[in-house]
């Protein structure tokens, strides 16, 4: 099983009364809360953390795309990937990913990933999410009723642009390009592996199964809650008659590991509560715009993970409004987060056991680990990262590797042909 160090890049200094005083961390978060000096420090610390994870031996580092979001300071994951590209020479980079429908034309994604693949010598994974409603529909003004069609057309355009060996015309419903000619071409042929982050849309399960794409459930709510979603995907794979290769699946999980369980409880409480009770304070009105879900998903009654978090956060805010002088309703306790599996916590043995259980019950070969979460300070991030890399990863890295081939992992140029580190440094 591959472990990917995944970073959300949350803004670390939202005020303690944020849920009480503000409607949402996403879309209409107050611009006045952003301190550029904090931003400067934060970006550089977060890049340090990603590079440190690479040094520790993670199989890959992972980045993603959010807009107008207090818990995601990466409107452009490709910029962060570019910043990492020459400083993590032995690690793959998972961009999970570029919200294809937001790029006009989506050819830009094909070009930028091809550039990154060229710089890194073929160490890229290209992730293509539809994108959350907050990002795509509200922050970027896309039409909820047409975004999925636009997205699928965009992915089709990118795949054609990477694989066709002639200049061609693309006459789509949303994209009309007389000359398509991606230059540069990606190093990996026919193209970098494509992973699809999903939030529970039943049609995405079908599509990934049919097209042999990796389905990644980037849940914030742990493996216990995510099991049903992954089972839904594997059922679709089985229906196609294909092998259920665990490397076609990915999952995200918060990790909190320390020398002892008690230490872990002490160390990770604050950052977990910051993430789940402040960062996920999303207004429910942004989470389910009409048309964003497919009829099949509506019919199946599937609720997206952020939709669920938003519903709960808004319910707390409304409970406060309707109460006479009572305090703001408490969010989840850390104990609940651990009990429900949102956070895998413990000493290395305990964490390894839970990760093993997660991987085998969900049947996933790619684990996106959140070793940074919430407002965790940089020393604690390093501790958590190193503990996972040195004491947990060795216990789980062999999972599935003998039984299955990872057909969705980057295939970089072999050394010494590969050139991906700075040759000249300033004196």
């Amino acid at each position: 099983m591959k472990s990917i160090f995944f970073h959300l890049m949350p803004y670390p200094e939202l005020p303690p009364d944020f849920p009480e005083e503000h409607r949402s961390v996403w879309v209409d978060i107050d611009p006045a809360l952003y301190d550029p000096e904090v931003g400067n420090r934060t970006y550089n610390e977060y890049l340090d953390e990603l590079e440190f994870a690479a040094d520790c031996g993670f199989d890959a580092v992972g980045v993603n795309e959010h807009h107008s979001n207090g818990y995601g300071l990466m409107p452009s994951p490709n910029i962060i990937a570019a910043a990492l590209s020459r400083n993590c020479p032995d690690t793959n980079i998972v961009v999970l990913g570029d919200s294809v429908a937001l790029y006009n034309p989506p050819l830009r994604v094909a070009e930028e990933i091809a550039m990154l693949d060229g710089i890194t010598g073929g160490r890229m994974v290209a992730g293509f999410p539809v994108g959350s409603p907050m990002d795509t529909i509200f922050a970027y003004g896309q039409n909820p009723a047409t975004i999925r069609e636009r997205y699928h057309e965009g992915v089709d355009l990118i795949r054609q642009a990477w694989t066709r060996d002639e200049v061609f015309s693309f006459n789509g419903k949303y994209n009309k390009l007389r000359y398509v000619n991606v230059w540069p071409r990606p190093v990996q042929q026919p193209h970098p592996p494509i992973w699809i982050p999903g939030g529970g849309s039943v049609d995405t399960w079908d599509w990934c199964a049919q097209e042999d794409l990796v389905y990644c459930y980037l849940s914030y709510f742990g493996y216990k809650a995510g099991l049903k979603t992954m089972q839904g995907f594997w059922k679709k794979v089985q229906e196609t008659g294909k092998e259920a290769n665990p490397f076609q699946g990915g999952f995200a999980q918060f990790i909190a590991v320390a020398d002892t369980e008690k230490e872990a409880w002490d160390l990770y409480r604050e950052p977990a509560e910051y993430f789940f009770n402040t960062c996920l304070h999303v207004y429910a009105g942004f989470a389910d715009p009409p048309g964003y879900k497919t009829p099949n998903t509506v019919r199946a009654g599937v609720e997206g993970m952020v939709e669920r978090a938003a519903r709960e956060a808004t319910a707390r805010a409304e409970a406060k409004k309707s109460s006479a002088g009572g305090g703001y309703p408490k969010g989840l306790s850390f104990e609940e987060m651990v009990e429900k599996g949102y956070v895998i916590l413990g000493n290395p043995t305990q964490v390894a056991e839970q990760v093993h259980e997660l991987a085998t019950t969900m049947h996933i070969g790619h684990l996106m680990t959140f070793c940074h979460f919430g407002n965790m300070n940089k020393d604690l991030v390093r501790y958590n990262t190193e503990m996972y890399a040195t004491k947990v990863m060795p216990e789980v890295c062999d999972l599935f590797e003998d039984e299955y081939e990872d057909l969705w992992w980057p295939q970089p140029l072999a050394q010494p042909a590969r050139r991906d580190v700075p040759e000249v440094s300033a004196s």
Partner: protein
Amino acid sequence: MSGYATETLPFREGHLALVSCGEGSPVTYLHGMLGNPGEHAFLNAMANKGWSVTAPSLPGFTGSSEPSGLRNLHDWVVAASELIDVAGVTGHPVIASSVGAMIALELATIRPEAFDAMVLIAPFGLWDPQDPVADPFATTLSKQRGMLTVDPAASASFFDDLEEMPADLLVEHGVDRYLTRSASAQLIWPIPEFGISERLHLVKNPVTLVHGAEDAIIPASYLNKWAQNLPNVVGTHRVEEAGHQAEFDRPEEVAAIATSALS
């Protein structure tokens, strides 16, 4: 009231749903965001005043399938033009509400004979940055209900499930509601302004404007804005205790206004 007829007519690669009631002079009702209400107090009120009402569902709304070719407003207007022909209501007077009023106005700019006189209830289409139209979608379902009508009971036909519905029909009722909301979003996302103010001089039809005094979506100032921009406004009416879809909150009153305007 009894005497409702429902029809499903072939329309492009799918179908169009249509309800009709009453006997008398023909009038068309083009629904708004709440979709085609079927048997409803407003249609009853019109029928009782001697009208033969035909209410087609726009593409993607309440029982009508969504044609695949709807990329932009132009496609919607062409579809609406075809739809009134298929429904057999071309040239009739029209009462159009909300998103339906926007489509009716757009169609009138390019096909004046599409309708006779027009009664328009809170049309979308204008945008004043100093007094912007509210976002009807950045909200929860229950709050959206409060934006569409003042009285929650007035929009029960759209929002409420029937208690006696079996479970599978309940699911499909929910899907239909979702698709109708989706069709509205497709029409007016993200800002319901598509340059109609530059085309309004082409609307020669006599227009009566109706606006719910408590419309939580389109501000009160828009009644005058439409009146100033349309060349042939014959009446403006502010309906008290009515929200965005005033004909749902005050069916008798809006029916009386429409009857007066169209007679």
